[in-house]
C-alpha cells in the first residue's frame, strides 16, 4: 500500500463504518445515548439504500421492525413516512404470526432517513471510505480513511454490508463493485485480513429493474394493499394514514422461460463454479429454482413499484446471474413481460463476511475491546436483520463507553435475541434470515406486543423517552383493568342473552358465565360481546386486540411461559469469562473445543452449541459450583 499522509479528523466516542440499515441504527442509537458519533459511508447517496427488494417487513422481519421501534430505533418511523402499500400477512393463521409487510418508496425512504441523521445532535455524517481499523493492545482506537483522515474513537461499529470485497457477477462478466453500481470497499478487506481477521465469502442476488410502461398488466393478477392501514411504529398507532396505495402485480414464468435458463446454465457463474460464496436457500435465483424443482411448470413473479417518482419496477422472483442477453430473453418469456425494457440488469454479488461466532451477544468482538460488527458482515441478510443488529451494536458500544452493563436480549424476550443468539452461538453457513419458526417462544413474542415487551428496556438505557414509556405503562394498565373488569361481568342464561348468543351463532347458556369466559369461545370476539356489556369503556383498537388475544390464547401462552421459566433457569447461570475449559475434567474433547471457541456467557447458551451434550452441561454445572465454593472459602478465610 502506498503511504498516505494522515491527519487527525477529530475525536469521537463511536465511529460507525457504513450507513446502511445497520450503520444508521447503530449511529442513531449511540448519538441518542449522548455519545459523540461519526458515521462514515462511501456514498451519502447510499444511506439506507434499499438495494434489493422495495419491501420492509414480512414474516419474522415485521416482528424485528416492531422490536426496533419499541427500543427506540428509527426503522419503523421511517417506513411509516415512506410506504406506498401496506399489507398484514397471515391474518388467518393466529396472532403470533400476523406479519406486517409494506412496499417502500425507495427514494423517500432514503431522503427521510438522511434528514433524520443530518438533524441528529451528536451525529456527524461524512462521506469517506474507511480503509483501516486501528487496533492497539487489543482495543480499538479509531479508523483511517482513504483520504488520510484518522478519526479517533473509543468504539467502532463495522457495518459494511455487501460493499466489503464486493464482486458483481452477470454471466461471464464480473467486476469489483458495491451494490447497485456503488464503489466497493476493497482496501478495508485487505487490512482486516492483515489484522488477522478470517473473512469468508457470501453471495446474494437481485433481479432486474424494468420500465413500467413496457409491461402488459392485463394478464396479471392485481395485488392491492389492505383497506385498513396498520402502521409499524407504536407511536403512530392512533394516527390516520392517508396513503394512495399503489398495487403490485402477480404473474408467472413459463416453460419457455425455463428452457432458456436450462440451455444457458453453463453460462451462469454459480453453476460453472466461479462464485464461491454461499447463497441463501430462501432467496434462490431463478436458475436455482428451475434446477431444484424441475417438475414445476411455472414460478411466481411479482412486479413491484420502486417508488412514486420513478418508472422502475422490481421483478421479484427472478434474481439471476445469467448473462444480460439471456436475462432479457428469459424475462421476455414471462407472462406479460413479452416486450419488457430492462433498466438495470439482474446480478449476483459476492462479499466478505466474518464468522459471527467470534462475537459476544453484545456483537462486540471477543478479543478486541469495543470493536462491534453488525449486519451482513455477520452473515445475516435482510434490511430488518441488519437494522436490529445495528441497534444492538450501537447500544452496546455506548454502554461500554458509559461503563454500563451489556445490553442483551435473550431468546424469550425478542426476535432480536433469537437472531443474535443464533448468529453468535451457532454461526451460519448461508446468509441468515429471520423466520418465525426460529423463535421457540413465538406465541409470546408477537409483533402486536413488542412495545409491552421492550419499551421498558429501551427506556432503561435512555433510548425511549419518558413520555413514551409512560404511554406504554398506561396501555398496559388499561389492558389489565379491562381483563379484570370482564371477569366481573356475569352473564346469566336469560332468554334475552341466549337470543343474542344465537344471533352470534353461539351456543346458548345453561349456567351463568362471565364475559371473560365467553370471549374464549372461538366464534366470539371481544367486540361482539359489547351487546352484553352496556358499561364498556372506550378502548382503542390496539388495547381491544391485546385483551382478546390474552383471553383467547391464555392456555397456550401459559404453557409457553412455563417453558420460558425453565429456559431462564439455565440462561441465568452465568459462566465466568476466565473459565478454562481444558482444565475441566470430564468434558468431552468436542465440547472443550466448541466451548472454547464460542465462549458462551451462560449455561443456557452453552447448551445450544452443537456438540455439547447434556452430560457436558452437567459437568459444567458441577465445575461452576466447585468454583463458587472455592471462592466463598477464600472469602471466609
Amino acid at each position, binding site marked *: 500500500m502506498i503511504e498516505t499522509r494522515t491527519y487527525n479528523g477529530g475525536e469521537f466516542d463511536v465511529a460507525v463504518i457504513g450507513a446502511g440499515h445497520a450503520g444508521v441504527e447503530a449511529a442513531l442509537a449511540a448519538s441518542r445515548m449522548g455519545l459523540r458519533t461519526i458515521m462514515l459511508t462511501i456514498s451519502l447517496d447510499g444511506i439506507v439504500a434499499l438495494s434489493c427488494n422495495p419491501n420492509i417487513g414480512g414474516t419474522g422481519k415485521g416482528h424485528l421492525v416492531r422490536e426496533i421501534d419499541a427500543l427506540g430505533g428509527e426503522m419503523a418511523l421511517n417506513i411509516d413516512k415512506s410506504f406506498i402499500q401496506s399489507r398484514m400477512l397471515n391474518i388467518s*393463521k393466529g396472532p403470533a404470526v400476523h406479519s406486517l409487510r409494506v412496499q417502500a418508496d425507495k427514494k423517500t425512504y432514503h431522503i427521510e432517513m438522511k434528514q433524520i441523521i443530518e438533524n441528529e445532535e451528536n451525529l456527524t455524517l461524512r462521506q469517506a471510505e474507511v480503509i483501516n481499523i486501528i487496533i492497539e493492545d487489543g482495543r480499538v482506537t479509531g479508523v483511517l480513511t482513504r483520504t488520510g483522515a484518522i478519526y479517533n474513537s473509543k468504539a467502532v461499529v463495522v457495518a459494511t454490508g455487501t460493499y466489503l470485497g464486493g464482486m458483481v457477477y452477470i454471466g461471464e462478466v464480473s467486476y469489483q463493485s458495491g451494490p447497485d453500481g456503488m464503489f466497493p470497499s476493497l482496501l478495508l478487506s485487505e487490512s482486516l485480513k492483515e489484522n488477522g481477521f478470517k473473512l469468508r465469502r457470501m453471495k446474494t442476488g437481485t433481479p432486474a429493474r424494468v420500465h413500467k410502461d413496457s409491461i402488459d398488466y392485463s394478464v396479471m393478477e392485481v395485488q392491492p394493499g389492505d383497506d385498513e392501514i396498520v402502521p409499524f411504529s407504536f407511536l403512530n398507532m392512533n394516527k390516520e394514514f392517508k396513503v394512495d396505495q399503489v398495487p403490485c402485480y402477480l404473474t408467472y414464468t413459463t416453460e419457455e422461460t425455463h428452457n432458456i435458463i436450462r440451455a444457458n446454465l453453463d453460462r451462469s457463474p454459480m453453476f460453472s463454479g466461479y462464485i464461491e460464496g454461499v447463497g441463501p436457500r*430462501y432467496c434462490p435465483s431463478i436458475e436455482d429454482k428451475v434446477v431444484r424443482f424441475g417438475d414445476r411448470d411455472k414460478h411466481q413473479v411479482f412486479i413491484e413499484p420502486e417508488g412514486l417518482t420513478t418508472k422502475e419496477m422490481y421483478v421479484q422472483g427472478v434474481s439471476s446471474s445469467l448473462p444480460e442477453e439471456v436475462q432479457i430473453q428469459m424475462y421476455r418469456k414471462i407472462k406479460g413481460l413479452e416486450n419488457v425494457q430492462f433498466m438495470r440488469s439482474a446480478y449476483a454479488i459476492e462479499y466478505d463476511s466474518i464468522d459471527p461466532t467470534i462475537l459476544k451477544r453484545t456483537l462486540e468482538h471477543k478479543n478486541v475491546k469495543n470493536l462491534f460488527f453488525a449486519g451482513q458482515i455477520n452473515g445475516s441478510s435482510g434490511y430488518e436483520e441488519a437494522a436490529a443488529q445495528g441497534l444492538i451494536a450501537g447500544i452496546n458500544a455506548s454502554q461500554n463507553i458509559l461503563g454500563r452493563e451489556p445490553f442483551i436480549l435473550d431468546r424469550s424476550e425478542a426476535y432480536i435475541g433469537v437472531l443474535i443468539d443464533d448468529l453468535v452461538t451457532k454461526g451460519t453457513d448461508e446468509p441468515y434470515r429471520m423466520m418465525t419458526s426460529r423463535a421457540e417462544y413465538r406465541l409470546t413474542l408477537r409483533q402486536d406486543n413488542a412495545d409491552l415487551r421492550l419499551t421498558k428496556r429501551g427506556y432503561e438505557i435512555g433510548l425511549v423517552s419518558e413520555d413514551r414509556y409512560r404511554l406504554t405503562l398506561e396501555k398496559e394498565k388499561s389492558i389489565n383493568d379491562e381483563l379484570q373488569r370482564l371477569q366481573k361481568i356475569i352473564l346469566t342464561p336469560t332468554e334475552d342473552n341466549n337470543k343474542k348468543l344465537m344471533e352470534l351463532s353461539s351456543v346458548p347458556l345453561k349456567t351463568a358465565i362471565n364475559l371473560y369466559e365467553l370471549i374464549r369461545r372461538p366464534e366470539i370476539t371481544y367486540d361482539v360481546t359489547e351487546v352484553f356489556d352496556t358499561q364498556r369503556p372506550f378502548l382503542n383498537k390496539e388495547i381491544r386486540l391485546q385483551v382478546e388475544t390474552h383471553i383467547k390464547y391464555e392456555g397456550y401462552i401459559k404453557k409457553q411461559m412455563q417453558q420460558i421459566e425453565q429456559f431462564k433457569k439455565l440462561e441465568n447461570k452465568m459462566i465466568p469469562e476466565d473459565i478454562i475449559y481444558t482444565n475441566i475434567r470430564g468434558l468431552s474433547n468436542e465440547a472443550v473445543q466448541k466451548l472454547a471457541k464460542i465462549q458462551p456467557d451462560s449455561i443456557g447458551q452453552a447448551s445450544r452449541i452443537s456438540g455439547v451434550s*447434556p452430560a457436558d452441561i452437567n459437568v459444567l454445572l458441577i465445575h461452576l459450583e466447585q468454583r463458587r465454593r472455592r471462592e466463598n472459602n477464600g472469602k471466609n478465610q
Partner: protein
Amino acid sequence: MSATIAAISTAVGESGIGIVRMSGRDSIEIGKSIFKGIRGKEVEASDNRKLVYGHIVDDDKIVDEVLVAFMMEPYTYTRENMVEIYCHGGIIPVKKTLELILSKGAKLAEPGEFTKRAFLNGRLDLTQAEAVIDIIKAKTEVSYDVSLNQLEGSLSREVESIRSILLQMIAHIEVSIDFPEDDIEEVTYEELVENGNLVLDRISKLLATSQRGKILRDGLNTVILGKPNVGKSSLLNAVLRENRAIVTDIPGTTRDVIEEYINIDGIPLKIMDTAGIRETEDLVEKIGVDRAKESLKNADLIIAIFDISRELSNEDYHIIDLIKDKKTVVLLNKTDLPNKYDENYFRDYFKEIEIIFTSMTEGVGIEELENSIRNMFYQGDVKLDSSMIINNLRHKNQLELAKINIESVLNDLNNMVPLDCLEVDLKNCWENLGEITGESITEDILDRIFKEFCIGK
C-alpha cells in the same frame, strides 16, 4: 427446590429389599398420596426421618407392603425433601411403585442426578465433586449403551418414521406461516387431522406393546389346572428341564406364597397359584371354586391338563366348568397309554381351544406347547418382533407424553385453533419422541422446508 425426581436406587435384580427414592419439591406430597399407614394412620410431622410401616396403594389396590421414610429438607442426602420407600425385593413391587410415583408427576431421575443435586445443594464437599462427575459420565455412557441397544432395529425405525410424519406436519405449517406469499400449497386442517390421527394410532400401537414389555418384566400370569396325578408337576419339570429355566423364589406381597417362574424363549411364565400344582392337593376341593375363579380372572394364560387314559371324572367336569369360554390350552396327557375318549369332546365346551396331545413321561408335545405359548404372546393386531417391545420406562414415559400432546393437537384442530397455537403441542410431541432417539431439533425443520418446498421470491 427443584422438580421432583424418582428412581430405583438398589441394583435391579434379586435382593431382599428394593428401595425407591424420591427427591424434590413435591416428593412428600406424592409420597403421602400413595402411602397408607397401618390402620389408616396418617403420616405426621413427628414421623420425619422415621421408618413408617404400611402399604403402597394405587387408589385402593395394595401394590406392596413397605417401610417408608419421609425426610424433610435440609437434613437429607440431596438437601431437598425426600422419600425413601423400602419395598420387597425383586423387580415387580419396586417397578410398580416407581411407575406409580411417575404417574403422580415425578420425573425419572437422570443418571447421577441425586448425587448431582446433593452436590449442587452443598451436601457433598469439594473432593467428592470429581466422583460425582465420574458417576454422571459412567452412568450416562451405560444408559446410553443400553438405550442404544434397545433402539437398534425396528423400534428406532418406527419412532423415526413417526417423527418423520410429525416433521412433515411441522414443516408444512412453518412454510405456510413463514412464506405466505410463495407458490406452495398451504397446509390444510384436513391434512393435519389425517396425519395427526396416523401419528396417534402408531404411538398407541407402540404403547400397546409396552403391555407386552410389562409381561417380559413381570411375567405372564399362568394357571395350570388339573386334578391330582394328571401330570401337572411332570409338565413343569419337563418344561424346566427343556429350557434350563431359572427358577426363582420371589417373596410376593403375601409372604407365605411362593411364586415360581419358568422361562420359555425369553417369555417368563409366572405360575400363579402354587397350591394347584402340588401333587397331593386338589385345587377344586381345597381352595374352593371362588378362589379358583379369582386366580383365573387374573390369568394371562390357562393350561388345563386332562388324563386321556382315564374317563373324565367329576373333578374334570368342575375344571371344564371353570374354564369354558376362556382362552385355554388343553393338554391331553398320557397318550402313551390307551385313549379313553375323543378330543372332539372338548370342542363343544370351549370357545377358543388349542388341544395338544402330550406324554410327559415320553416328552411328547412339550415343544408344541411352547410354540403355542410363543404364538399366543406374539400374535395380535401388530406384528412386532421382540426388539420393538417397549421395555424401558423412560421410553414409555416419553411415548405417553407424546400421546397426550398429539391428542391435544387433534383436539385443537377440531376446534379450529390457529396454526401458531396448535404447533406448540405438535413440536412437543416431536421432541418427546426425539428424547427416545436422541435427535436434535430446529435445523431439521428448516432443512425439510428448503428441501421440499420451492420458496423464495
